[in-house]
């Protein structure tokens, strides 16, 4: 009996083309689009600014500065100012009047935030100072003055050795996007599951099954298994997109540092959580249209709060605290543990337990509501 119920559920989902699109195509596309779109935003090692240099000085010094900027790697020197983030103007007689400190003029595009401007100023300053130091060095050599014993360096790599603390490491765009949209996609079972369930309620098939001695537990459990399988297929397809498809678009591939067992445990717990919420909506909503609307809004809200739309590490502290109420946030944290912090099953046990508990509670509430509804003739 149970096998027939599970098979029926599979057939109903697999014949719903729109549901399949929402479950598989949508999250895969999101992973691809968001990984590529946020690639530079997440790149920590290398920020390059698009600039235009207008040289009104036309001196050896101004040419040396432009050459230095070109070689720095932090600047893309453009010809036309339309696409530039910064326009740097070297004023006339800049070199000649240098002793009086004539400022370089910098025109900043309106959309540039202050933190980016600070980074730009620091990178530009390093180049300006490097030229001045070289100038002073040459001057000292020319005057046969003694050279300082310690070599002066402005190279970040020589001056700083940067390493990330493991627990605070920041993901690449792919590492952020893949778990985000896996979690979001998994919760999208809310749409097909609630629609099928409500149709069964409305068309009296649930009543008919109840009249055939099919228990409430069988009705609900038979829905859980197909969606767990669908969720697992989703997870591995999305991981495949992150590992194999995203790199084709010049974006870092997904790197899984943690264990496969942890992925299975976490995704299973996420399934239970998503299915519990879907069942609760399915038994509570009065129509398929209502379930689709509420389900869609609920998914987006949980995603927005939980760090799917906007990464949690760039949220203000208060929002980061608020994000903890969303089960999507627990799932996302778990995946980031696995991908970035070499997480194993023990490391994601806490998140998995919370997700499992959330799913269990929502399923129990759903069964109580369904029991009441069936006893009232649905």
């Amino acid at each position, binding site marked *: 009996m149970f096998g027939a119920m599970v098979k029926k559920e599979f057939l109903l989902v697999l014949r719903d083309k729109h549901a399949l699109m929402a479950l598989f195509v949508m999250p895969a596309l999101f992973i691809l689009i968001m990984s590529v779109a946020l690639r530079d935003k997440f790149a920590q090692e290398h920020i390059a600014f698009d600039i235009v240099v207008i040289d009104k000085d036309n001196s050896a010094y101004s040419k040396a500065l432009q050459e230095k900027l070109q070689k720095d790697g932090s600047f893309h020197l453009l010809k036309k100012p339309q696409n530039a983030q910064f326009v740097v103007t070297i004023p006339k007689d800049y070199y000649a009047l240098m002793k009086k400190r004539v400022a370089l003029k910098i025109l900043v595009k309106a959309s540039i935030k202050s933190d980016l401007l600070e980074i730009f100023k620091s990178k530009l300053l390093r180049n300006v100072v490097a030229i001045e130091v070289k100038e002073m060095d040459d001057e000292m050599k020319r005057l046969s003055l003694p050279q300082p014993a310690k070599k002066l360096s402005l190279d970040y790599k020589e001056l700083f050795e940067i390493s990330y603390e493991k627990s605070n490491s920041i993901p690449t765009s792919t590492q952020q996007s893949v778990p985000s949209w896996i979690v979001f996609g998994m919760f999208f079972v809310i749409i097909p599951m609630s629609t099928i369930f409500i149709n069964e309620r409305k068309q009296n098939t649930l*009543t008919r099954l109840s009249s055939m001695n*099919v228990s409430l537990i069988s009705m609900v459990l038979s829905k859980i298994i197909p969606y767990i399988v669908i969720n697992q297929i989703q997870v591995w397809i999305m991981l495949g997109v992150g590992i194999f498809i995203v790199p084709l678009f010049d974006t870092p591939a997904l790197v899984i540092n943690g264990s496969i067992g942890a992925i299975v445990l976490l995704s299973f717990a996420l399934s239970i959580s998503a299915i519990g919420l879907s069942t609760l909506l399915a038994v509570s909503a009065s129509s398929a249209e209502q379930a689709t609307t509420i389900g869609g809004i609920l998914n987006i809200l949980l995603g927005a709060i939980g760090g799917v739309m906007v990464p949690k590490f760039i949220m203000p502290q208060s929002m980061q605290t608020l994000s903890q109420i969303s089960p999507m946030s627990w799932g996302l944290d778990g995946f980031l543990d696995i991908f970035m912090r070499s997480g194993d099953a023990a490391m994601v046990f806490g998140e998995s337990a919370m997700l499992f508990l959330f799913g269990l509670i929502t399923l129990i509430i759903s069964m109580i509501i369904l029991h009441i509804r069936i006893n009232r003739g649905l």
Partner: protein
Amino acid sequence: MKRQRSIKKCSNSTENSQVITIRSLNKSYGDFKALKNLSLEIKEGSVFGLLGVNGAGKTTLLSILNGLIDFDDGEVIVGGYDLKSQKKEVKSISSIIPQHLAFYEALSVRENLDFFASVQKSSKESLQKAIEINRLQELLSHKASTLSGGQKRRLNIAIGLLNDPKIIYFDEPTVGIDPRSRGEILDSIKSYRDMGITVVYTSHYMNEIEYICDEVAIIDKGRLIKQERLENLLSNKLSDSVLIESVADEKLAHLGLNLLERNLIQTDKSRLCDVLALLEKEKIYIKQIRYGASDLEHYFLEVTE
């Protein structure tokens, strides 16, 4: 493999050929009393009509008899089983054909039948019988959503036959279908009686009740108003009335006759010859004439508020 049925039946089982016995049944939804002290007996192998206006309590009664909802107090014995303590056994010997088409539109006819048969552990013979009785052989591979209204109704009924029920409850099974399919369904229901199955039938179409039922009960506001064999009920209302059932003909509407339905003419004995002459002149053929009987619809309207 056929389901093993419990042999622990109540002592007052079907000795007096009552397959359903209801005594002092009460059911409330909050403050609303859906059934009030209702008592009823239904004979084994009969086609029993359950009549009542919307909200009279018919659906509540059917839901209780199917074990779908609990009742407050009273006693209900179905097929010899006490409904309160042997709900599972009651469900296994009965089947409800809901008014709404309770199957999966996205599945084929075969998939639907296989699914509901598996759920009830029905035998292959029962499955085959349900297919044949409802003439679904040619439609097995068709997706349920592509069937016509009548074919859908037949599938809906076939699913209800899969557990070899002793009692079948039909909840307005002919709503929204064409006359031919309706006639076929009514004939098939009559054939269930010949197979020894008890049929409990609710409908708003009084002529259907008259056509297929042996006995009727009229329920109003949760109370039993009348339970009687159909012929007794109608003969109690003997009058000068004559009912003439003709073949359907558009001309009927323009002859100035008292039409109860499209092809059902009511007249009194004194005018019968004139009406028959008129029908002959118009070449409208007569199917049957019933003397001295009132129709059920008029009786129903009289006894219900």
